[in-house]
């Protein structure tokens, strides 16, 4: 049965490491749903968060293959719903003088921030899990979405557990 998994991958902060990780996915025919990369609190260690959709065995195989990369220090595979997950969305919506306040109200309901306004557009920023981000986009769709940019999800385990290098 397919479901959404998150791979939290700690890697050496070496040049080329991202292409090694991503290359492995395409080479072995695994699809990446979303991807986020950033430095961590540990020196020399970056964290790559990868969302994948697949069955348990496929995901296990991906994680084993990733583990073989020398630059990969640690991997944690989690079901998507076991984690605190956040992504950031920027969306530019078409507006007219008539519906500007409606759009801003919707943004308020979602606790999105308006980060830019022009005569004919507003740009909103929203953080959240993907269902929240998608719901927001759905609500804005009737007004005309001009452009979106979304980060990959980043995620941490709930509670006291920590992924150590």
């Amino acid at each position, binding site marked *: 049965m397919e479901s959404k998994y998150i791979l939290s991958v700690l890697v050496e902060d070496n*040049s*080329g490491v991202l292409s090694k990780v991503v290359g492995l996915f395409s080479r072995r025919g695994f699809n990446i749903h979303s991807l986020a990369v950033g430095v961590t609190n540990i020196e020399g260690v970056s964290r790559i968060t990868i969302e994948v959709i697949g069955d348990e*065995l496929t995901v296990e195989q991906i994680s*084993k293959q990733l583990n*073989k990369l*020398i630059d990969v220090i640690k991997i944690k595979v989690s079901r998507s719903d076991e984690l605190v997950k956040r992504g950031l969305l920027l969306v530019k919506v078409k507006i007219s003088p008539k519906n500007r306040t409606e759009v801003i109200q919707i943004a308020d309901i979602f606790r999105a921030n308006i980060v830019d306004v022009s005569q004919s557009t507003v740009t909103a920023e929203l953080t959240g899990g993907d269902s929240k981000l998608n719901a927001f986009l759905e609500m804005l769709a009737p007004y005309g979405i001009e452009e979106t940019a979304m980060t990959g999800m980043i995620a941490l385990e709930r509670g006291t557990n920590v992924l150590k290098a």
Partner: protein
Amino acid sequence: MTGAEMVVKALEGNGVTTIFGYPGAANCPILDKLPDSAIKHILVRNEQGAAHMASGYARVTKRPGVCTATSGPGATNLITGIATAYMDSVPMIAITGQVVSGLLGRDAFQEVDITGATHPFTKHNYLIRDGLEIPRVIDEAFYIASTGRPGPVLIDIPMDLLKAAYDYPEGKKEPIVIRGYKPIGMGKAHEMQVKKVAEAIKVSQKPVILAGGGIVLSDATKELREFVSKTGIPVVTTMTGVGTIEGGSNLCYGMIGSHGIKSANMTLNHSDLVIILGSRLGDRSVANAAGLEKRTKLIHIDIDPAEIGKNIFPDIPVVGDIKDVLTQLMPLLSDYHTPAEWKEYVDRIRSDWTFEEETEDSGFVNPRYFVKRLSEKTGSDAYVSTEVGQNQIWVANNYKFTDPRHFITSAGFGTMGYGLPAAIGASVASGETVIAVMGDGSFQMDLAELGTMCQWDIPVKLIVLENHRLGMVHEHQFINYKSNYYAVSLEGSPDFCKLAEAYGIPSMKINENSEIDKGIDALLADKNSFMLVVEVDPFEQTGGALNSHHLPKGVE
């Protein structure tokens, strides 16, 4: 100390005595320092040859073979050899010169992204950005290449770093710590899993061991043979597993797979328990993994966790070093004996499918019979390399290897042009004469390496099975393309005896079965190189009646 001097010092520190290589501007700084070192550099004729020689060398010594090339085309010529080593888990260090750091990424003369290109088929690779990293990176590379599941590691070094002088980091070497790589201590398997394996074997009525190349890498040949002689479990092998059990042993039931022998495939398919030891179960070994999963119970023992569940889903997975796992397993099975009925059954299959070879004269030499005689006349313990194609299959199925490290072949990648350079590397490593069995097609892929052989006085016994065709493809077209033979004729090939003569290598050609012994005797008369050209019928098949292509439907 210059970067190049650090390279040489680090190689020496890792016990390197021989490098196979080819020069160019970017690796010249290293070559410039080699005359001051005890390391011998063997100049090859094409960088691909250097990589294959390093690979043949490593298979014999179990230590990483080292090859070097210049940037750009030198580096890309290594690629086939690196991929070949990767697919057979052969430890290798490839050192390439790179354009100067300041020109990286600008499509400079002879620039290529060799670390990017080789990433998919190296165990790891490095592009050095700071000359002071050279000693550490080389030590790490040897460590990574030779531990856990071995493999090739490539190190790309910009020319300016090789030339620059550095304050050499004197003092005691730091132990190697790589956060993401902990191969040591992976040896023993989980006790629980080992117990489960023992229980499964005890209740099995028809067990079989599938022996793969992992046994060779783990140096577990002795343990395997002990395990088998105690339990009496029949053994079939993959191509890389050939020789793990002596070819002449009565518990050896042969090689499985699309080019294996029918009785081996039947033994596998009629079992109720398969104990897979160090095999990835590639598609050429088990074409229908799902079918095997359904039919029998599977135990998969491998050091690489990623192999388990990749091609086949076992009932009992065991991660560990085969040598350790077999040692753990043996005491648990001290009073197990393979049921006699099953033994009788597999013996019957084996004898039903063993044929007397044709030995009448017919204008051609029977290649299977030829290899059998070669095996007998060399006591089955010579180092034998093969090329790829029918020649490889005839050797795998008919030379009764007593030692798996003596069978040097490109199994996983099937690289034509491997056999000759690999034989050269193996000969350098062992100091012994190595026999290279080649098809006339493959031989011509890297035949320039005859020059390397002669220049460095490396004794190789060359056997060319001459069928004037790309035999294996010819066979494939016969079976699968309604005999539409296309692009398989090797018309235009030289007279191989004259070619040998041009290199100063004595030779002989034989055309009849009655000449086999005379030919082999001439070949083996002394320690020096010799070429024996053997006329083979282009319509020969890899197994004749034993060929699994002729199996009834549903049996693979």
